[in-house]
Each structure stands twice: as C-alpha cells, then as structure tokens.
C-alpha cells in the first residue's frame, strides 16, 4: 500500500461516525485533563481503558491517542496563566509564558501555545508518514552509548535555561540529578535514599515534583499578595491578537521545535518532557538576544510547545512499527490493542493497515478539532485570571492533590507534594530555578542507567563512546558546547 493509498484508506476509517465521535471526545477530554494540574493523559487513559472493551479497536485506539495528544494542548494553559504546569512537559512553558501573562499578554501567549502545538502536531504527522520506517530503525540502532552521550549533551545544552549566576543554576541541576537517584538502582537492585519507605522504591513521582515545585510553590508565594485581591486589569480583544512581530518570531522556533520533538519522540524512553525542555534550551541558544528569555519571549513558548506535540505524534512510531512502547502511556495503548486481540509488533502495519492509517488520519482530524476548540477558548481561559485568589487557590490545591493521587493512587505522594511545595517556595524566594531541578531529575537517571549499561555492554571499555559514530558525534558536540563560552571569554579578553 503506497502512502497515498494508505492515507485515503485511513480517511475512510477515521471518518466512520463512531470513530470520529470517539476521536473528538478523546481530544476534548485530553484538553481538559491537560489543563487540570497534575491530572494527565495517563490517568484519563487508565480510566477510559475499561470502556475500550465495548467499542471497536479502531475507535478505542483513536480515542486514547486523542487523549494523549490533546493533553499536550491543555498543559500550557495553567502554565501561562498561573505558573502552574498542567503536565510536567509544560513546566518549561511557565518560564516565558507566565511573564507574558503578567505583562498583560496572556492572550497572545495562549495563542502562541495553541498555534505552535497545532503546527508541531501537523508537521509531526508529516514526519511520521514520511519517515516512519527510518525512525523505526533509528529506535533499534540507538544503544545505551548513544543515549548516554546524547543525554549528557542535552543536560549541558539545557543547563543554561535558568536565570542568574552559573553556580546557582548548576546547583539546581545537581540537586535534580540527586533527587533522581532516589529509588531502586536498576543495575544493582540497591535501594538508594529510600529511608525504609517502600513508597520510594520506584523513586519520587515526577508529577508530584513538578506540581510541588511550580504549582504549590506559586500558591504559597501568592498567599502574601492575596490581600491585594482586586479585580485584575481588563483584557481587551486587542491584547488577544498577536502582533506581526509576534508571528514572525514564532515561525522558526516552531520549525526547530518540531524537528527536535519529532526526533526525541521516536526514540523509546525519551519523549515529550525532554523534548520541551531541550526545545526551550535550543531556542535560547540560537537567539540573538538570549537575555529576552525568562522575561516573556514568545519563542520560549513556540519552540517547546511545538516540540512536545511533535514528540507526542512520533512517539507512535516505535509503538506501531516495532510494537515497542516508548513510555508508560504507550504501553497502556498497546495493552488496549492486546485486549482487542491485536498483537502489536513489526507486522502490525501489514496485518492491520486499518489501524495504522486510520490512526494517522485521525491525528490530523483530532488536531484540527483541537485548534478550532482551543482558539475561541482563549478568552475564557484568560477570564480565569479574574477569579479571586481566595477561590482560585484552594481549588488549585484540591486539583493538585487529585492529580498527584491519580498517578498511582498513593496518599504518600500527596504528603510528598506538600513537602516539595514548601521546598519549592524556599527555592523561589532564594531565586533558584526549579526548571533546572526538574531537568536534572528527568535527565539524570537516564544518563546514569545508560552510561552504566553502555559500560556493561562494552565490558568497561570507555572507547565505546568514541568508537560508535553517533555517540562520538554527541561527545564532540558536548565538548563544543563546553568550549564555546570559554573561547568567547578568551576573545573578549584579547579584543
């Protein structure tokens, strides 16, 4: 089946009324859970799973997929308006989205997030269709050495995203990496920093960490301001419309974010959180005026939002072409396929073309629907800012607790989020960047396990990082990233 035949076949599948309705329902639900802090696609898909027993396999998968990419849209809303990421991957959107909202440009920031999400998804679909085979091979050709080298590069490239002095930034990255060590060590089975708490054996819950550091810390910080609880300035329609300059600034970041997200999404084990962080780091790196970042640069929204949406689409590549789920949500979707008697694997495209092409076409329809749904909602979201703090903040705390609990039904995690919130407030007061802590937390364990695994595979030979061409490329790039500021400094001194 050629691509064109496949797409037209997929169209007949995706436009079946039952499939279409489930797709739209999934997209709507995804947006909603994305907006609600802490409650993510995982919880929604888990709840929907029993329903999938009773509907066709195409409708089931299309619905679950729509929840997954729909959640990537909603996550930015609370990040921009309240500095409260709806999902961990939108934590980075707070960095420039929230300053924009404080400058009265919340509407423009939301517009940028929605349009970048849409563009990232649509271009992600193009990447998926054009390069599915190549991306599938990429997934198996990336070994532990490549992952380790690539993640070190990511960590080095991204550790400049915070504000302030390098020592402060570095200390947050290190703290994040250390927090990532909590739990059972994969290689030895040794329990690290668990203090006899069985609840910590699987590590600290990422959602609890993100919600505590950003959401709760922000709520605590605002308690003092809450007395000045007047109605916020009126947002006129004019302020919702981006300027020509805004639009011009968004184009290149969307392109770069899409490519970056498309690449990381297709690799099992990386995914959309890493994509959005690195998307942000990339924009800051290539910017002519990096000092604008953190003060409401629209590129800082467009890049990461395009990246995480593109990653959410290409994440289906290893799942559909190899039967290998790249993250727990994808594993859940494969579970749904198995319930329907479809064995995911390399033969799926041939054995179930309806499923593959129907899903691909439904991505397009679902994303179009999400754009149409979300653009008019911007005004409504912005009006959320008019809710008095004394109503808004208790509601936020309730949602954060619900969201954290929804991850694995653990009351322990709710206590955790309270503690992390207090620490997050202390960090905010001392002007440390929580985004860097989160970055270290996400990348640290990946670097550690892959580094150790690469050395096991090579039987302890460090040459493996230079011998394997792709790994070597990442090592050179990392060295360049480290050397660049040094050279700049030298030139300044000489010049």
């Amino acid at each position, binding site marked *: 089946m050629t691509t064109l035949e496949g797409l037209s076949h997929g169209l007949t599948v995706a436009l079946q009324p039952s499939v279409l309705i489930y797709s739209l329902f999934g997209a709507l639900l995804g947006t909603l859970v994305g907006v609600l802090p802490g409650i993510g696609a995982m919880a929604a*898909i*888990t*709840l929907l*799973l*029993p329903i999938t027993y009773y509907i066709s396999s195409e409708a089931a998968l299309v619905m679950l997929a729509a929840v997954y990419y729909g959640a990537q849209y909603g996550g930015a809303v609370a990040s921009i308006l309240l500095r409260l990421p709806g999902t961990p991957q939108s934590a980075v959107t707070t960095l420039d989205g929230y300053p924009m909202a404080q400058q009265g440009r919340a509407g423009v920031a939301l517009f940028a997030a929605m349009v970048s999400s849409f563009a990232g998804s649509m271009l992600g679909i193009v990447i998926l269709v054009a390069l599915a085979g190549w991306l599938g091979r990429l*997934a*198996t*050709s*990336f*070994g*532990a050495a490549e992952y380790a080298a690539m993640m070190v590069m990511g960590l080095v490239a991204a550790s400049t995203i915070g504000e302030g002095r390098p020592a402060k930034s570095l200390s947050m990255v290190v703290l994040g990496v250390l927090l990532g060590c909590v739990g*059972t*060590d*994969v*290689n*030895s*089975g040794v*329990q690290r920093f*668990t203090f*006899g*708490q*069985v*609840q910590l*054996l*699987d590590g600290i819950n990422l959602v609890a960490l993100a919600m505590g550091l950003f959401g709760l810390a922000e709520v605590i910080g605002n308690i003092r301001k809450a007395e000045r609880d007047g109605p916020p300035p009126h947002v006129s329609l004019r302020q919702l419309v981006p300027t020509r300059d805004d639009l011009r600034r968004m184009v290149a970041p969307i392109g770069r974010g899409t490519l970056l997200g498309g690449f990381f999404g297709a690799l*099992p*084990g990386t995914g959309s959180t890493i994509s959005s962080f690195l998307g942000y780091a990339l924009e800051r790196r290539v910017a002519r005026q990096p000092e604008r970042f953190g003060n409401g640069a629209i590129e800082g929204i467009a890049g990461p939002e395009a990246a995480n949406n593109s990653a959410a689409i290409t994440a289906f590549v*290893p799942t559909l072409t*190899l*039967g*290998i*789920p*790249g993250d*727990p949500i994808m*594993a*859940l979707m494969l*579970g*749904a396929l*198995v*319930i329907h*008697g479809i*064995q*995911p*694997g*390399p*033969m*799926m495209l041939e054995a179930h073309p309806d499923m593959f092409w129907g899903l691909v076409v439904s991505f397009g329809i679902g994303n179009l629907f999400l754009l149409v749904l979300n653009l008019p909602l911007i005004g409504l979201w912005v009006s959320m800012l008019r809710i008095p703090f004394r109503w808004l903040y208790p509601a936020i705390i309730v949602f954060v607790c619900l969201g954290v609990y929804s991850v*694995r*039904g*653990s009351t322990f995690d709710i206590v955790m989020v309270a503690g992390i919130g207090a620490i997050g407030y202390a960090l905010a007061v001392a002007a440390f960047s929580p985004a860097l802590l989160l970055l270290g937390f996400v990348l640290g364990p990946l670097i550690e*396990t892959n580094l150790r*695994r690469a050395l*096991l*595979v090579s*039987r302890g030979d460090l040459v493996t990082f230079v011998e394997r061409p792709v790994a070597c490329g990442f090592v050179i790039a990392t060295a360049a990233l480290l050397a660049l500021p040094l050279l700049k400094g030298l030139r300044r001194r000489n010049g």
Partner: protein
Amino acid sequence: MTDLRRSLALASLLAGAFVTSAAGAQDWPAEPVHVFVGFPAGSSPDTIARLVAEPLAEAMGQPVVVENKPGAGGVIAIQQMLARGNDDYSFGININGPLTTAPRLIADLGYDPVADIAPVGLIATSPLVLAVGADFPADDVQGFIDAAAEPEAISYGSVGEGSGAHLTAELFADAAGVQLFHIPFQSYAEVTTSILGGEIDSGFMAPSAALPHVEAGTMKMLGITSAEPFAQVPDVPVLAGQAGLPDDFRAELWNAMIAPAGTDPAIVERLNAELNKILKNPEVQDRLLAMGWQAQPGTSEDLAERITDDTAMWGGVIDRTQAAN
C-alpha cells in the same frame, strides 16, 4: 454529649458489632469486595484481575472493586491490603515476586508472605522463552550453551536485579553450567529493543513479547521454561531435559489470589471454589491464553505449596548470585 446520647451511640455500636459477627460466612459478602492489584490499569496482572473480577462479582452478587496500587513490583498493593486488616472484604491479586523473592530483595518489606498471607488460589502461570536475535549463530539450546562456554561471553537482558527474567536466566545458567553476563533494563520493551539492535545477545521473556519479532524474522526462540510445550508457541521446545538440563527444570511467573492471614477460612474456601469455576470456563481460558497465560485451577494448599517451593528455589538462585558478586 449527654448520657442518653452516649448510651444510644454505644448501643448502636454494639448492635453493629452483633450484626457483623452474626452475618458470618453464610451471608458473606454483604458489601463490595476489594481486590488490591500491584500493577497499573492495563498491565497484564490488572487485565487478569479484571477478567476474574467480573464473573466473581456476578457469582457473589456483590461488586468486586479492583484497586490498582502499583509500585515496588507489587509489594505496595500487598501492604495496602494488609493495612485494611482481615476484614473479610480485602483481597489481593498479585504476581509471584512479592510473595516469594521480595523478603530477600527488600529490607523494609513490612510483611511476611507466609505468616501474614492466606493463599486463596493460583490463577494463571506464564513460562518464559529464551529469545535471541535472528543473527545469533545457534538455533537451539545446545548451540546456545556451547556459545556460552567461555565465561560471560554471552550477555542477556533482564528487567532488573532480582526480577523473574534475571533469576530465570541465572537458574538456567547454573543448570547448564555456564556463566552468562547480566545487563539489567527497566522493561521488556527495552530488552527487546536491545536484542533487535544487536547490543545484547539474549533474554528470557514472555512468549507474547518475543512472538511478533519471531514472526517478523528478527528474533529466534530457543526454548521455553514450562514443563510442557506452551499452547501459544507450541513449536518452541521445552528446556527441561534438553542439552543436559535437568528433567524437572521449570521456571514460571504466576498470578494468584490472596487474603490477609486471619480471614475467615470459610470465606477463603468459598472464594477458591468460585475462582476455580471461573478458571474452568473455556472462554476465560482462551482470553488468558491470548495474553500468554495458562489458567491454573487448584486448591489454596496448591498455592501455599507453590509459594514455599518457589521461595526455596529462587532463594537458592539469589544466594548464588549474591555470592558471585
């Protein structure tokens, strides 16, 4: 509170206690039954639990609520079940690990699988296959063992130190008299990717995990750890008795239903009877097999024996691997 109110409250409390004790096993269950599952919704232990919970609820006339309490390889769900006390309404469906090897691997487990757990019945078992990449030079177990003659020449992936995949591989290596090189991963998906990419040589995994890649011609299955050939992959030879391996070589993962120790024995018996009825239903058997699991009806004593035997067998493997490290 006035005296009258206090005595009324006391009276109603006593009446409540009386009603509960009078109810006994005949009227059980009088309220929804809770089943604690150690893995998230959509995982295979969860799917198995739900497959059993639905007909169980129908047979008993009360809802059976599946409570997913994932974490620590199933251990958290057992702790949560025990935290509710032996109220005759809290049960668990869990895998072998938390009931056999967990006391050896987790220092602060908080329960004793023998003293604190009352076995209800085994639900299903799953063997593991020895899978290698399509390019692997050998096509059978003898060839694999020959290739592994040099210590640590052949590597294998597992889903972590102490996991079923790790211990099975070490059990196999010990029986075959070879030394394999262990590389731990976090999921079977990672192990599969690594074998496909040629990074590691082999791995023990569920037949359903390897099967799609075998059909695609990118993997080979050299043997299976069950005592009999497995219906899902009937052509894969059993390892027992082959290439010098003992005739009783067997390693299986299992799912079982358990209760807190002290649960009314009549209730355990009733549950076991219902469970066996469900597991003898051919439709349930087919659904289990499609997921790679073999239904295993049996008595609660059978499960107790399985726990004791496996604890001893895996304990021996853990002793040897820890001594080697």
